[in-house]
């Protein structure tokens, strides 16, 4: 049976959701929460989205989408334009090269992988920002940002998994 016009639109829309959801994570991360001390330790939510989709549906998270997400994150967070974009693209490349390793692994292994990837990503952002300003940027909150990002991972990846099962099974 040939797919009708509307079913094509439906499939295309579903295929866009990984990108859309990750963009949404960038925006959610930017909403002021009015909690003491939260501002400087806001978790790096888009990294979770990129990591998740790059592992489970790499076809729906191409490198160009990752770059756009990074630019949006830079624009909103005030980091030098391109820093996060570059780091996200590198993260995407690393996961892409380790596809064979990640295939069919348990959640714990995937989470452990995220321990390493997010540490590397935050360190890389720190190095790039420091290079940009030509000074060692003090970031007293970096380690907390790391821990909180790690803590968000199980919850968020569970939500993304539900989404994937519900909407992207056939897409």
């Amino acid at each position, binding site marked *: 049976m040939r797919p009708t016009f509307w079913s094509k639109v439906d499939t295309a829309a579903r295929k866009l959701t990984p990108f859309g959801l990750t963009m949404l994570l960038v*925006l*959610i*991360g*930017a*909403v*002021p*929460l*009015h*909690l*003491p*001390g*939260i*501002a*400087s*330790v*806001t978790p*790096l939510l888009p990294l979770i989205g990129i990591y998740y989709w790059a592992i489970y549906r790499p076809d729906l998270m191409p490198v160009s989408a990752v770059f756009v997400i990074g*630019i*949006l994150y*830079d*624009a*909103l*967070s*005030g*980091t*030098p*334009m*391109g*820093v996060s974009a*570059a780091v996200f693209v590198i993260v995407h490349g690393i996961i892409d090269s380790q596809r064979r390793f990640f295939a069919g692994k348990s959640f714990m292994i995937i989470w452990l992988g995220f321990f390493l990837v997010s540490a590397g990503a*935050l360190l890389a*952002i*720190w190095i*790039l*920002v420091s290079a*940009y*300003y030509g000074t060692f*940027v*003090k*970031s*007293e*909150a*970096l380690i907390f*940002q790391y821990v909180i990002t790690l803590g968000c991972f199980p919850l968020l990846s569970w939500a993304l998994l539900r989404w994937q099962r519900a909407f992207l099974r056939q897409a």
Partner: protein
Amino acid sequence: MMLGKADAVLVEKLRLRIIDATAPILDVLSRPVDVVTHTVEQAHDWMAIHDENERLREDRARLMQWQTVARRLEAENAALKQLLHFVPEPEGQFVTARVVADSGGAFAHSLLLSAGLRDGVDKGHPVVSDEALVGRIAGVARHSARVLLITDLNSRIPVFVGPTRTRAILAGDNTSRPKLVYLAPEAVVSPGDLIATSGHAGVFPSGIPVGIVNSVGDGEIRVKPYLERERLEYLRVIDYGLTGILGGPPAAAPVAVPNAADPKEVAGSQEGTEP
């Protein structure tokens, strides 16, 4: 990233375009959070209402005395100004705007506001909350603006320190306690001294409260700003009609050289970089 260094104007324009496009979405997203925060705050207030009442009574008694003093000083001040034909500083016009995003993370301390060029906000305008300095407008688009907080790495603000009104620059370094630099070597600074803008460099008017000296030692002086980042919800952007040194691209902003009348003092303050 290197392009950002090469063509700062173009990249900043791109950033502002993106901010302008996303600000309405952020505005909607941040509303429910505000409602929750308000509800929680209200519950807190109800619980503490008795203690608060007691405290306010005491405050009121104390402030009544101050009011008498202030009235007398105000009258005296007005009389003296008239005697001296004093030209008053320009009164500012202000715009009140909502904070729609605080996405700093660990590397940048900035906020996004829901007001922009259309509302009269422009680059360099000081941003205050409860009369204390929060930062300045670092970039402005049509419907939104980006505020650089005084704690950001790129923030340099000329200030007066303490009762002696010693000049210094308040330099942010991405920690919650910015430091004082370019302080005259002979200056005496002690914890608790008040910090207010000095008005040098012609970007801010003088006398906006900034914070108090938090610690002195190890060759650096740290300031505790009045600004409480997590409490910022509505901010006032004030237009004093000052443009000062911020005419150029944002990359030119980091070091503000005090536009002092006395050249000797400028030399002195720059020699004593960090006491």
